[in-house]
């Protein structure tokens, strides 16, 4: 259990700057999810915390101690990799015990801790098997087990669920969250999946092009995005953006207005703030997504409405309206006005 502090972290590979100064303060036992599109530097940031990548400038402190030059093994961290990185020639048991064996933990204690982790992760029947004899979900659990038995100060997860199928991903997501809160170990979790980020995080860090655009609780980030990027990245379907000039009584200094699909209501043609035509609809059962092309130009709008409501017909002219409170205005630099 530990606090982590990232202070103005920068990273360059040769002449390419990848991370342009990131500050994050992580409290003891907190679950932090770093989310962003591929290439935004989120994995690099995690690997710097792990000690697998050097820090170009800035300071990383774990539990008050600066760890910039400290080897991964001496940082008291455990990491779960995207492809699990299990040792193929060792059994499940040996895989989990390896770190403890190197640390010269007494044999009896190793056996006990491995058994405890195996019980927690329901891996008991598989302890003698080799990784290649396990399914993807089981391998994922072994990778988790290898992290748990070490009783580290910090868990680091590098997209641990992206190699699993959709159903298993949901299940493992719950298990990871449950395990982390039970053990109370500070966790740093990297993903590109915003659903994972929203459901797992105590606080999430939205990264964009090497910068942490916004740090906050998931719902806070969702309802109050600080930048145009965050508004567009978090939430599915994505926020609709429209030129502020087209919106009546837009706030001063705004160049774009964002409105979430669920905040828009469809009205008969001629009514509401804007008008357009229905392009196509996606009926998902509980909800329906209506895609519109606006009369103002090339903008497309997505409207999310209740599945019980009447399906609009493609090609029909419609009007759209939203509450003034639901408008998110951004200036020409993409920052919230």
């Amino acid at each position: 259990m530990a606090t982590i502090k990232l202070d103005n972290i920068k990273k360059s590979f040769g002449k390419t700057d990848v991370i342009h100064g990131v500050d994050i303060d992580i409290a003891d036992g907190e679950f932090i999810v770093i989310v962003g599109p591929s290439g935004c530097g989120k994995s690099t940031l995690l690997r710097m915390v792990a000690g697998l990548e050097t820090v170009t400038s800035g300071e990383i402190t774990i539990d008050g101690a600066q760890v910039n030059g400290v080897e991964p093994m001496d940082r008291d961290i455990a990491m779960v990799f995207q492809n699990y990185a299990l040792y193929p020639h060792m059994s499940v048991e040996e895989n989990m015990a390896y770190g403890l064996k190197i640390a010269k933990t007494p044999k009896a204690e190793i056996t006990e801790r491995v058994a405890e982790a195996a019980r927690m992760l329901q891996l008991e029947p598989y302890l003698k098997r080799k990784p290649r004899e396990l399914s993807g979900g089981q391998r994922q659990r072994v990778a988790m087990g290898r992290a748990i038995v070490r009783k580290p100060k910090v868990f680091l997860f590098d997209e641990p669920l992206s190699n699993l199928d959709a159903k298993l991903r949901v299940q493992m997501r719950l298990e990871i969250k449950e395990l982390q809160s039970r053990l109370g170990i500070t966790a740093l979790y990297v993903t590109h999946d915003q659903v994972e980020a929203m459901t797992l995080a105590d606080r999430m860090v939205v990264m964009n092009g090497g910068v942490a655009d916004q740090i906050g609780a998931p719902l806070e980030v969702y309802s109050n995005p600080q930048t145009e990027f965050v508004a567009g990245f978090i939430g599915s379907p994505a926020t609709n953006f429209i030129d502020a000039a087209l919106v009546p009584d837009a706030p001063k200094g705004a160049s774009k207005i964002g409105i979430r699909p669920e905040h828009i209501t469809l009205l008969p043609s001629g009514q509401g703030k804007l008008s357009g035509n229905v392009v196509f609809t996606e009926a998902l059962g509980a909800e329906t997504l209506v895609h519109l092309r606006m009369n103002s130009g090339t903008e497309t709008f997505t409207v999310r409405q209740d599945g019980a409501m009447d399906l609009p017909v493609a090609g029909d002219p419609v009007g759209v309206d939203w509450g003034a409170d639901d408008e998110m205005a951004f200036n020409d630099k993409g920052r919230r006005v």
Partner: protein
Amino acid sequence: MARVTQDGMVEKRGVGHYFTHVGLIIGVLVIFFPIWLAFVASTVTQSDIISPPMPLWPGDQFLTNYSKALTSGINAPVASMLMNSFVMAMGIALGKILISLLSAFAIVYFKFPGRRLFFWLIFLTLMLPVEVRIVPTYEVVAGFGMLNSYSGLIFPLIASATATFLFRQFFMTVPDELAEAARVDGARPMRFFWDILLPMSRTNIAALFVILFIYGWNQYLWPLLITTDPSMNTIVMGIKQMFPSGDDYADWPVIMATSILAMLPPVIVVVSMQRLFIRGLVDSEK
């Protein structure tokens, strides 16, 4: 008709099946016949061999001929030549494997100045077989006083670019995350090498051992050059030394017994390591 067996191979049925077997059996007989003749010649007397027709079935001199070969031979007892060959082949095979494993490990996992240069230098030596550098190598070995010694037989042949290259290619297929996971688990580089890389390469090592053991066993030119003392002769060159010069008669039964004895160790190595050997060549165990 074809049907896929459990191994994923297509099994042929019907008349074609038998023809294939007949073809294979004929091929084996053609290859095996000279070896059979050598064996027959090693079990009969000298006069049986010289007087035509040559015998095609083993005689009763097996023990006499083989014990004569093993204990006294012609120039040196075959037993000591076998021992020399064995030491040389094992030294070369194990030494080559150890050196190439370590150099491949260095080239793949460590960043040091001149890493690429060293790799290409190693790669370059692939193009220089022993025969090309044999005169300068002889000079060096003679200068170190290593003529007529095991170290002289082994060291000049102990570095292997091919094996280094092979291990490098294998190490590069090992996912980086494995090395990183080991680092996070607390394994220092050599620990990672022993605990993880080495066990993962064991099939490759076995395959290479078979190839290199035979390579070492079959060395002819190099031992011929540097061993003048018959007690240091290796068996492959020793056979040649048994042929008489001038008007002496050749003791064919003993020479043939020696040939058969020379063949045995490589056969034993191949047969006993066959399973690992084939696995090493076919799959990479990941």
